Each structure stands twice: as C-alpha cells, then as structure tokens.
C-alpha cells in the first residue's frame, strides 16, 4: 500500500528542508496490512517517508528502518535513488524517529528490503516522472521525448538538460501522477540495485565519526549504572548506598520499580547509581549493598531444567503439522532411528551493550537510543511513565549490533524513568556484565526425532518434537507453547516423506526469553539436519545425495497458512527446486566427495530455508591430535530472490558463518538458582579471528524472484553442517551445543 503525496508547500517541512525543496511523502505499510489501509480511506496528512530534492541538488531520503549492521539504512534509500535516477553522491540520509505512520518499524525478521522494496521503487519512480514533467513543460516538449541520467532530465533531440535541483521548485507545484502513469525501470536499467555499493555510513565508521547509541548525548546529562535484581522478579528489600556515595563523581542513588508481570520490555527494577561519568557510576555500583527478596525464579537451574525438557520431548506434544500417519508406520516394526538434541541459552552480546539517553520534561520524553524498534520505545515508556505514546519522541542512532536484543527497549525506559525522578537527561550505560546477565535470552531447547527407515534407506515416517520456553512468555506469564517459532523451521519441513508429524511440548520460562538472530531456526535446523545426516550415515549413503533425496523432486511444498500468511504464501511458496539448487551449488563449489573424510578432516552439509531465503552451507573442519578444531572453509549458497546490495549480502553471510561458529563451538549461558553464571567474554566466549571460519565463500543466486531475508538466514545451517563435518572427520556425533561440552579425543 502506498499513497504518495506532494508535500512541498507544507509548512511543517520547513525545519527539514530548505524553501523550494521538492518533497514527496508516502504512507508506508508493510504488505500484510495493505487490506486494512485501503479500508481506512484516503490518507490526508502523513509526514512519513520523505524524498526531498533541494534546489542545490541535494537529495534527502528518509530511512525508517534501524541500521544495526545489516545494511537496510543504505539499501532502501538506494532503491529510491535508483528509480529516481538520482546521483547517489548527492544523497543525504535522514534517520526517521519512531512513528506509527511509517508502518512497522521493528527492524527484525530480516524483512526491511522484502517488505519495502516495492514501495521504495514507487516513491523514487514517482519523483522521476514529476521531474520529467517539470522539464518537459519548461522546454515545451512532450514528456515522452525526455529521459533521465543521474541527477538530470535530458532532452536528447535538442541536447538540453536540466538538473534535478533546477527542476525542484517546478516539480514541487505539480500534482502527483496516478500509479498507472508511473513507469518503473526495467531491471536492466537499474544503476544501483544489484551493484556493489558501499554502506552509506562507511566513511564515518572508519574515521570514528559515526554516532552509535553509546555516543549519543544531551546537554546537562548525567550517567547512570543500574544494579538489577540477580534473579528475574526479585525486588529490593533494603539497600545501603553509604560506600557508593563516597565514590568520587557519584551524585546519588535512585531506585527503579520492578516490572509488573508480564515483564514485556519494562525495566527489571533495581538501584541506579547516578554520577558525572560512566566510570564513576560503574564504581559506585560495586560499592552498593542490596538485600533482595525472594523470587519464584530462584528455583531455576539450567542443568536440572535440561532433564525436564528432555523428558517432555519424549512425551506426545501438541501437533503442529501432520502428513499421513507416522504411528501406523512405526507400528509396522521396521528399522527405527531416534535421537535427542539439546541447545543452551545464548546471549546476544552485540559489541555495543544496551545504552540510551532520555530526558523527561513536562510530561514529554525525548530519547536517543540504538533501538531496532523505536515504536516499542514509545509504547514501553508510555506504559511505564503513564504518558501518551505520541509524547515520546525516539531518535534512532546507529546500532553497534542488535541481533534481536535491541528490539527490546528496557534500557531506554530506564533512562526515561530516572530522568523523570532527577529532572535532567540521563544516560543509562549497561556494562558487558549487565548485558550478558540480563539479556532476553535465546531459549534453551530439547528436540526428539524418530524415523522409520524403508528398504532403500529413506525414511517412511519422520516424527519431530521440540520443547522450549517460548518467546510468548515475555508477553504472557502463562505461555508454555511456542507460537510464531513453529514457522521458524518446524512446521515446514521441506522433505519428501509420506508420513510426518511435527509437535511442540510445553515449557516454563524462568528468565526473559527473546529472539536472537534467526531465533528458533537455530535449534530446529540443528536437530533436523543433524538427524538427516544421521540417517544418511545409518544408510551408509553420501550425505549430499541423501539430502537431495530427502528434499525430493522439485515441487511446491503444500503447507497450511493462516489468513494473514496467504499473501506471503503466494509470493513466496516453499519451492524445493530452489532448495535443491543451493545444495547443488555448494556441493559443486566445495568439491564435495573429491576429498576423503576421516583422520581429522571432514566436510558436512546442511540446507535450510528461513526468512523466505534458501541457504545451503558446506563446512570443512580439521581436528588436530589435541582435539583442537579449525574451520578452513565454508561454502554458502544463497537464494534470496532479488538482491539490492550483493557485496553486503556476501558480508552478511560471511558474518553469519562466524556467528554460527560462536554458537556451535563456544557460547553457552547457564543458570544456577536463577542467577546467570556467565558475565563477560571470558566465560561467554565468541569466536575470534583465529577460531572463526578462515574463509567463507558466498555464492548468491541470480534471481528475479521477490526479495527475501538476508540478515539472519545464514546462521541456521552453519551449526548442523559443522557438526556433520565433525562426524565425518572424527566419527563422533554431536547432539548438544556447543562443541566445547564434548571431548573430541
């Protein structure tokens, strides 16, 4: 849904654009909401997405999605610029504040380009048509005789041209053409889409001038560091701040109320130390003495909990997809293979810990934050402080990584709460220890899989059961079953098996649970693709050939879709031809089958579709005589449909291999009596240059299918491909993440 308007003469624009600027606005809604919007009637006034062309030729494009390293702040404006035929060097990007009129702004789920590609094209193309009209009138020629080159309208017959800047004032007076009269470019005419453009912010990043949340400031601000309750749900019984107040630079302490369940994105509560710099606030905190009351979550021990999850995974659960009759097939008494898999909690650990600056004044809040979701900032602060959502203004800085953590704005709400108490702007800085201990954790999970094997070694029945505390627990204290997570690689197994059942069992949450880069796909892909490889091993078959047989012939996999998913299902059916294709690419590129596995050297494969993108990875491992593992190569093939920025796509998938390597090799969060045991990179380890995959080759399939996700889909196949390679190299089957839990020798 798009409704483009000419805003050039609106008074409110004066702040953002110089007089005479040609400004186009559009109301943007992601596709699933199109139906609602048309029933809402015509849009009268929507200061939403703006494309501004000033008389000096400067083009301003508003980015309404957050930039956390995935490139959408560059990619979407690039699409506008391409259809506008703008000179990219003249483009300035304005980061939008949080505002529901932009439609959905939660930069998660790998869908910024997918959901807004068409609209961005339309805005750019509309601007181009209007500039052509303005030029044609000035020259007294037909619009058809005019064309554009970057930044100019050209009349070839008379060798005349006018710059967009020169035409801006005239274009500003024109009516917006009807959608039918706006011709989009052919793919072959794209100048920027599909080419290797650098990130808009690249020069600022390498010179240290980029502004991240950590760098935001407000005049007169003070710094706060908060001691949170060690166990979720604990409240302060009493506290003693005498020693804290003696720390040089510490001004005072304040308390923040504990959340009201469900916790959602509310502050956890605790004691804040206010100081005139970050370090003093950190030091003051160390000197606090706090007595906490009890919380029911103190019973939580992740080691114990694992047993509960694993036993639930052996019990019948809620059926989320059924094909044929697995029970009848199992009852026939043929060959059965079964296995259980386990994955721990994970923390996001973006390099920039949570941080925010906020000022409360006269019932209004102004915040600067590295947030994936500025509208959630508005909602959360409105809820906690009892102000109107519209009275919360949230500016979005660059994010020093997000990975899903920064969709939850609890730290921004903390800053607002403290500012209200203090009457001045407050910057809340989380330490790394805060970040790791008080995350919205990736869920711990147990999976159980069982297959009946037919005479040709292929499964005739496949049962899969998954159990974990759901993300829904963040919003509903009674949530025990997964919801959206089922679509993340569980109720859509793309295998050609006559009898199949997918189930989900119940589990309670005792820590905050949230989504982490690719979310439930991580444990689902781990279980499914480890199991597929186990079956290949059991049948004594080549893993790639076996996987292709499991996927079966090219076809559209029939799945059940909810009414909201119908549009998506039409545009993005689950197509096994595309899945097979990425498998074939990585098999060929990796020289699969040409190097014998064993003696500490092995290759493994996995292929997983997530966020509508088809990905296959082959991982090569070398295990030395001490059991040390190296990853010399990863080959990843990606079919994400139409690509805006191919080099950035390669970078995302290289990074996803590293992200996958961290969780496959090293990272684990454990909990004792409700308290998280890890606290910094010493005990929550991530791969470094020497332990990360040494070389990741990314092959991007050329496709004119609609664009799909890029930020997340590289993560899920990595871990199973890696463990399958470990099995090939050493004969050891890994059924538990991370690898550091298992002695290879």
């Amino acid at each position, binding site marked *: 849904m798009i409704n483009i308007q000419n805003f050039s003469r609106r008074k409110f624009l004066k702040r953002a654009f110089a007089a005479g600027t040609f400004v186009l606005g559009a109301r943007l809604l992601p596709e699933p909401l199109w139906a609602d919007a048309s029933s809402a009637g015509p849009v009268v006034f929507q200061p939403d997405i703006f494309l501004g062309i000033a008389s000096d030729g400067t083009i301003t494009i508003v980015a309404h999605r957050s930039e*956390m*390293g*995935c*490139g959408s702040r560059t990619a979407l404006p690039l699409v506008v610029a391409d259809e506008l035929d703008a000179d990219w060097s003249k483009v300035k990007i304005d980061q939008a504040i949080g505002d529901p009129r932009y439609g959905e702004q939660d930069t998660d789920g790998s869908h910024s380009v997918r959901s807004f590609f068409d609209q961005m094209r339309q805005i750019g193309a509309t601007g181009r048509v209007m500039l052509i009209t303005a030029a044609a009138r000035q020259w007294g020629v037909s619009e058809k005789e005019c064309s554009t080159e970057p930044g100019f309208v050209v009349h070839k017959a008379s060798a005349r041209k006018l710059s967009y800047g020169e035409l801006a004032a005239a274009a500003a007076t024109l009516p917006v053409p009807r959608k039918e009269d706006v011709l989009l470019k052919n793919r072959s005419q794209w100048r920027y889409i599909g080419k*290797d453009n*650098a*990130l808009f*912010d*690249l*020069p600022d*990043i*390498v*010179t*240290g*001038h*980029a*502004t*991240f949340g*950590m*760098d935001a400031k407000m005049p007169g601000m003070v*710094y706060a560091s908060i001691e949170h309750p060690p166990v979720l749900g604990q409240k302060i019984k009493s506290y003693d701040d005498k020693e804290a107040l003696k720390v*040089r*630079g510490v001004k005072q302490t304040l308390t923040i109320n504990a959340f009201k369940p469900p916790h959602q994105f509310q502050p956890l509560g605790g004691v804040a130390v206010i100081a005139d*710099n*970050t*370090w*003093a606030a*950190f030091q003051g905190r160390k000197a606090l003495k706090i007595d906490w009351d009890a919380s029911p979550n103190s019973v939580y021990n992740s080691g114990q909990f694992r047993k509960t999850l694993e036993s639930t995974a052996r019990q019948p659960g809620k059926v989320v997809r059924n094909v044929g009759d697995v029970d009848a097939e199992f009852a026939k008494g043929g060959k059965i293979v079964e296995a259980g898999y386990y994955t721990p909690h994970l923390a996001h*650990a973006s*390099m*920039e*810990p949570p941080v925010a600056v906020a000022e409360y004044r006269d019932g209004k809040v102004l915040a600067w934050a590295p947030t994936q979701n500025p509208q959630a900032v508005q909602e959360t602060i409105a809820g906690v402080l009892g102000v109107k959502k519209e009275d919360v203004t949230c500016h979005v800085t*660059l994010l*020093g*990584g*997000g*990975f899903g953590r920064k969709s939850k704005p609890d730290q921004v709400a903390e800053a607002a709460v403290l500012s209200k108490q203090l009457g001045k702007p407050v910057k809340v*800085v989380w330490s*790394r220890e805060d970040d790791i201990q008080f995350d919205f954790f990736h869920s711990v999970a147990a999976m159980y899989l069982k297959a009946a094997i037919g005479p040709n070694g292929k499964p005739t029945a496949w049962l899969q059961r998954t159990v974990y505390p759901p993300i829904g627990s963040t919003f509903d204290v009674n949530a025990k079953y997964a919801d959206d997570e089922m679509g993340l690689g569980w109720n859509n197994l793309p295998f050609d098996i006559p009898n199949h059942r997918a189930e989900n069992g119940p589990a309670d949450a005792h820590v905050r649970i949230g989504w982490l880069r690719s979310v439930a796909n991580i444990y689902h892909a781990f279980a499914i693709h480890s199991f597929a490889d186990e079956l290949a091993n059991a049948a004594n078959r080549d893993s790639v050939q076996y996987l292709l047989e499991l996927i079966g012939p090219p076809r559209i996999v029939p799945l059940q879709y909810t009414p909201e998913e119908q549009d998506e299902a039409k545009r993005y059916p689950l197509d096994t031809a595309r899945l097979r294709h990425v498998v074939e690419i990585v098999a060929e590129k990796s020289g699969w089958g040409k190097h014998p596995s064993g003696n500490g050297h092995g290759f493994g494969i996995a292929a997983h579709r997530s966020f509508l993108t088809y990905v296959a990875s082959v991982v090569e491992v070398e295990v030395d005589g001490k059991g040390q593992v190296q990853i010399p190569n990863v080959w990843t093939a990606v079919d994400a449909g139409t690509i805006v920025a191919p*080099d*950035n796509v390669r*970078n*995302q998938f*290289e*990074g996803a*291999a*590293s*992200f996958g*390597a961290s969780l496959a090799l090293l990272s684990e969060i454990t909990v004792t009596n409700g308290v998280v045991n890890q606290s*910094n*990179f*010493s005990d929550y380890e*991530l*791969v*470094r*240059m*020497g332990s*990360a995959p*040494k070389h*990741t080759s990314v092959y991007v399939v050329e496709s004119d299918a609609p664009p799909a996700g890029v930020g997340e889909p590289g993560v899920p196949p990595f871990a199973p491909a890696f463990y399958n390679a470990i099995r090939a190299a050493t004969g050891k089957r890994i059924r538990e993440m991370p690898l550091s839990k298992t002695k290879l020798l």
Partner: protein
Amino acid sequence: MIRFKVNRTERTYDGDPEMPLLWYLRDIAGFTGTKFGCGISLCGACTVHQNGDAVRSCSVSMKEVNGTSITTIEGISANGLHPVQKAWMEIKVPQCGYCQTGQIMQAIAFLNQNHNPNDQEIEQAMSGNLCRCGTYQRIRAAIHQAAKELA
C-alpha cells in the same frame, strides 16, 4: 596534575587518577570514536595508541597516561586517508561498525611493526579484537591490502 597528549595536543587532567583512559576519552574529552565493549581487555573495541603502541584504553588508568602521547582514531586521519582506513573502505569491511575503530587502531600499530605479515601473524595480532558481526575475513584481507600499500 596529569599531563599528556591526545592526538598531538597537550592536555591536563586532575580527576580521579584511577579512571581508565577510555572513560576520560569518551566522557570527558569527547573522543567517542574509541568504544566501550567489555571494560576488561577482552574485546579490543577501546584500542588506542600510547606512544605508538596499541593499548586497551579500558585498562590503562589516567595515572599511567601521565607523560605519554595518546592517539585515537580521530587522530589518524579525519578524511579516512590512512592506508589502513582506505583498505577498510575498499574491502567494505564493516557491518555495524562498532568494533571497527578498535580493529583499525590495532591493525595500524601492528603494521607499523610488521610490514609484511602472514595470515598467522595477523590472526595473532588481531586475536584480542572481537567482532560480533563476524567481519574477520575482510579484516584479514584489508590488513594484507594495507600492508601492500604501505610497502
């Protein structure tokens, strides 16, 4: 009174001598290109040069800064013209970018000492710098490229 230089300019400081250089740079002097990532020398985001050597500014106290010369990313080249910055841009290393100033500072100090490093030496030198976005492969390539240009 603690006397030192930041980016070739004389400075003095008479606050808490235990304060880490990182927080002086960020909160007091306003050089926010130097980042906070862990506070205990485990991530390298805070890397600056002290008398030309790469140090973790989160773990150098102001009293240890006395009499020394500090260079931050802002003192390297405002236009990004240093060969290491140029290589970073040509290879398009950054994703979120948060770790990258620390990576660049570490790489510059390393290349000043080793003009023709091999992969292993690069991995060793860069092992203290985390990148959660996982840009290691490009960092390695950019260091090789910068080494060539510097030679």
